[in-house]
């Protein structure tokens, strides 16, 4: 729990987070509206925290020295993109050519069940999936449109860093809003770092449990967390 009641509490929270990261193998940044998605753009609160030098170093130790994993969903994905952890695999300053997640083309929040197709199993998070697998899951976000210069997109495709795409009932990705709720380029739902150990995605794989969404036929669960865990245990 990040505490910002006072400057001392902020410093303590930073110290605590560093300790916890140093004792973990996985960092998971969940969804939500950190700081209310303000000022005018999502995840600034989280990125401000992770850009503290001590936290950045702890993240690097987890990735580079201990071969750990990172997962960010929704607001967490926004944070990973805006830190550079996806697609670059490291926390770095942003420039105009970096990919980003911005406001949905419809200009408001979108919430519904979508279908996604696995495009690459480079990431250990997809240890239990195959390319072409189609899963159903909720999305719920206002800023999920993945945007990047064409050159960056080409590289991501070539490196297998595009993890998942939104697809329609026919299994095909599309720019149609019914398929791709935010207008992401290439209908991208999730991307990874070059080695796949950092994954960011918009779809809420974790919003799944026995008996949910009973009025949606043919639900198909994405065994993502299981994949990440099996990376360490199998």
């Amino acid at each position: 729990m990040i505490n910002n009641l006072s400057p001392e509490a902020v410093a303590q929270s930073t110290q605590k987070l560093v300790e916890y990261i140093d004792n973990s193998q996985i960092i998971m940044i969940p969804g939500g509206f950190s700081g209310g998605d303000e000022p005018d753009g999502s995840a600034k609160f989280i990125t401000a925290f992770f850009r503290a030098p001590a936290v950045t170093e702890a993240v690097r130790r987890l990735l580079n020295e201990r071969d750990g994993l990172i997962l960010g969903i929704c607001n967490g994905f926004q944070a990973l993109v805006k830190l550079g952890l996806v697609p670059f695999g490291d926390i770095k300053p942003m420039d105009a050519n970096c990919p980003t997640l911005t406001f949905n083309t419809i200009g408001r929040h979108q919430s519904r069940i979508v279908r996604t197709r696995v495009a690459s199993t480079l990431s250990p998070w997809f240890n239990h999936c195959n390319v072409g697998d189609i899963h159903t899951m909720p999305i719920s976000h206002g800023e999920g449109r993945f945007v990047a210069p064409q050159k960056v997109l080409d590289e991501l495709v070539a490196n297998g860093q595009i993890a998942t795409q939104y697809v329609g009932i026919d299994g095909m990705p599309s720019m149609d809003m019914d398929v791709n709720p935010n207008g992401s380029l290439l209908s991208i739902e999730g991307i990874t770092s070059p080695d796949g150990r950092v994954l960011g995605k918009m779809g809420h794989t974790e919003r799944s449990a026995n008996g949910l969404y009973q009025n949606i036929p043919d639900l198909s669960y994405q065994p993502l967390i299981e994949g990440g865990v099996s990376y360490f245990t199998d």
Partner: protein
Amino acid sequence: MVSRIYVEKKPGFDVEAKQLENELRMILGIEGLEKLRLLNRYDVEGIDDELFDRCIPTVFSEPQSDVTYNELPEADGAKVFAVEPLPGQFDQRSDSASECIQLISQGERPDVKNAKVYYLCGNLSDEDVEAVKNYVINPVESREASLDTVSTLKTSYPEPKPVEILDGFNEMSADELQQFIDQRGLAMDLADIEFCQQYFTGEKRNPTITEIKMIDTYWSDHCRHTTFGTQLTDIQIDDAVVQQAFDEYMQIRHELGRDEKPVCLMDMGTIGAKYLKSKGILKNQDESEEINACTVKIKCDVDGEQQDWLFLFKNETHNHPTEIEPFGGAATCIGGAIRDPLSGRSYVYQAMRVTGAANPLAPVSETIPGKLPQRKLVTTAAAGYSSYGNQIGLATGQVDELYHPGYAAKRMEIGAVVAATPADHVRRETPAPGDVIILLGGRTGRDGIGGATGSSKAHNMESLEECGAEVQKGNAPVERKLQRLFRRKDACRLIKRCNDFGAGGVSVAIGELADGLSINLNKVPKKYDGLDGTELAISESQERMACAVAAADVDEFIGYAHEENLEATPVATVTDDERVRIFWNGDAIVDVSREFLASNGAPKQMKVHIEAAEPYAPSWDGNTFKERMFSLETDLNTCCKRGLVDRFDSTIGAATVLMPFGGKYQMTPSMAMAAKLPVDGETTTVSGMAWGFNPYIMEKNQFTGAYLSVVESVAKMVAAGFEHRNLYLTFQEYFEKLRDEPERWGKPAGAVLGALMAQVNLGVGAIGGKDSMSGSFENLDVPPTLVSFATGVGSLDRITSPEFKKAGSKVLCIHPFYGNDRLTPETKGLLDVFDLVEDLIASGKALSVSTPGYGCAADALFKMTLGNRIGLKINDDVDVDTFFTPAYGTMLVELAADAEVPASTDDLTVTFLGTTVESYTFSAAGETIDLAELEEAWEEKLEPVFPYRAKGEKVEAISYDKKLPLVYDGTIAKQRVIIPVFPGNK
């Protein structure tokens, strides 16, 4: 020193500017507008240049999507102006910017002020610019800002003056007292203020202004339901059915030994539950002295074990604030609805929103002067409610909007929530002398003064100008922290009693916790200096709670609050005499007896005249079945509302059992919302909630309309798989200003009696309700409104949805007989229908179930086809006229292939209506309708207001399987995952 930066979205990222540009052209008709530029301006004080520069690409902007300027860009002929929030209003953008800067600096939070700068390019007249300003500036929350630089953001607050003692008050004549009410803008009437005068004469002193304002709040309709408590005398009833119901009501009073109690709307509204309880029909209600939310005791399955839990629910309106400032008003509607069950120490996990508006497709030029356009109201209120709900992480299970011209008088904005908690988390005790009251959550400011009394006042042309201080902005991240704290057993077990700050601020929220209290206002945390004692005592604020805890538990409780990143401050103690004393700067500015406060003012009396009802028989134009179906499905009240609903987070919490829209195509609206209870583990216990109401029946016949609201809400719950015997009701009444006219009083009286008879006949009791009697604007009134919410818990395996599942299924219509009015179902038959459908669901024979509402069976059947694009062929012997006749309580059932059609009985009829078909068509009366065409008409009706579709090209599917995933080559003893929780994370 103040640093300033301007931020503008790059082309392609400028969604907000493009949308506004479009609105200004299309809605406002500013045709000369060629381009609109929108810049965010940030002023920051208290940080050095180096830190400020570091914040530019991380906090204020993103290099990928934004351009920044140190100076205001050249106008180039554009008209430029800036808009800022009113001082004192909570501004999330500035607040979050300040918090982000602190995270980077790890120092103090700097002052940040945000303004928006508008560039209007094109050939525009002064009138055009003025029109745009009027459109974007709502004077109750924002104002035009200067384009000049500023030297400081600090405001100097004059030392507040001592609280005024009202010399001469006790000697005022009746005329002078009336003048006093007008001058001071009080909501109380002459009898109330004379009652105050008597009291203070007895106290041998004149009151302070704080005392008068506090009493005004205490006795306001918002806090004390003055209208509902008014004794009804001389009741004249012109309608035989209503007269009979009234006689039955008097008989029930007699049976319950309540002959001596005054006849009032409150008695009519609450006696149904008392009666059902006396008969043993209504069970498990959890009653206490605490006033939080309706609470029932339930059994909840947790990992196979049946545990004792409490289930809570609450509905709330924010009609007045939403009408004048739709974003903040609707946001605080849901915020307020959450806080009642939250103060009952339960976790709120699902919400419903039911709203009422006039035609949002009407041109802006038809807007009533002094009002916001309906289109702006419906879209901005939806944005406000969803913004708050989404941020706090509350799943919104169902959203609907009703359209009736009467809601031009004042919008209807209702939020309803369900909540639950293990029973052993809640301790309920009467606070004892020496106990401490802790104020938890947000700080007090000047916004939120007069909300309770304001919403109880009539509304006129000047409201938009004058009500600034009555508008509050919600701060969802703080309420999220309260939710986290109140989910903790260790913290909840310390709370003896708790109250939220919804209406009336410190004086009411703390004043209600115990009979004797001593409150020190100097301890109340403030947003800024300069607030005087009266302001501190009566300012409401959204995200605050007052908790009574034992003196020995104070430190422990505050510790838990700090762990959840919340401020907590002891501000009062419980005393042993029955007086409320409020101290400020050492003076007792309030010192009144509990007895006087609790009197609720001077008793009120009113004559009532319930007039004869008019018949209701809807029709949709057309000669053929197809024409009638097209008229019906392009009716505002039946058409597709996906574009409205999709903006509400429906799945947060991973507990949603029914999506708002069902089927492969997610198009069939669900009958009810349903969610698993928020247990730590696995559960099969599910709660649901459904609403019922048709303004077009209620405007003709309040009694029958309200009766049918109840029937509809219960029928929807049965259709969704809940059992009617396990349901509870809560009502939302919303009526015109009643004035002193017996005919106007007759409307709520008729409605409440109708709802009472429905409770008695159906055996389902109302244990909660809220009323608002302010739905008038000059000569325009809202339609008489009684929305019934049916709720309760059931079992996961019974949940059923209305979209057709298969081709080749038989579709049945199971209906009771209807009375002479052709609207009211006969009681025995209705209950038999419920029993039969509940059996069909339990045995798995019902694949899908729906029940008709406003759009009758025709609409219900059409919607059943949408979700999976399964058509329907109606049998030749069915008269389609019956599809366009009201049929509240009738059930439409898709029967499993191997199930037998149940037999009709003396009280209910089972009709084999037709068969589902593969082709996406609807055949009846010798015609076949192409459902794709009808669906398109249904979908596009409200799209100009609530868009949700956009065509796009196919993209290539990417398939990469060149590299194998990495393999972890270490070994670990135990996996650990760190999940940092930031303010606002779920």
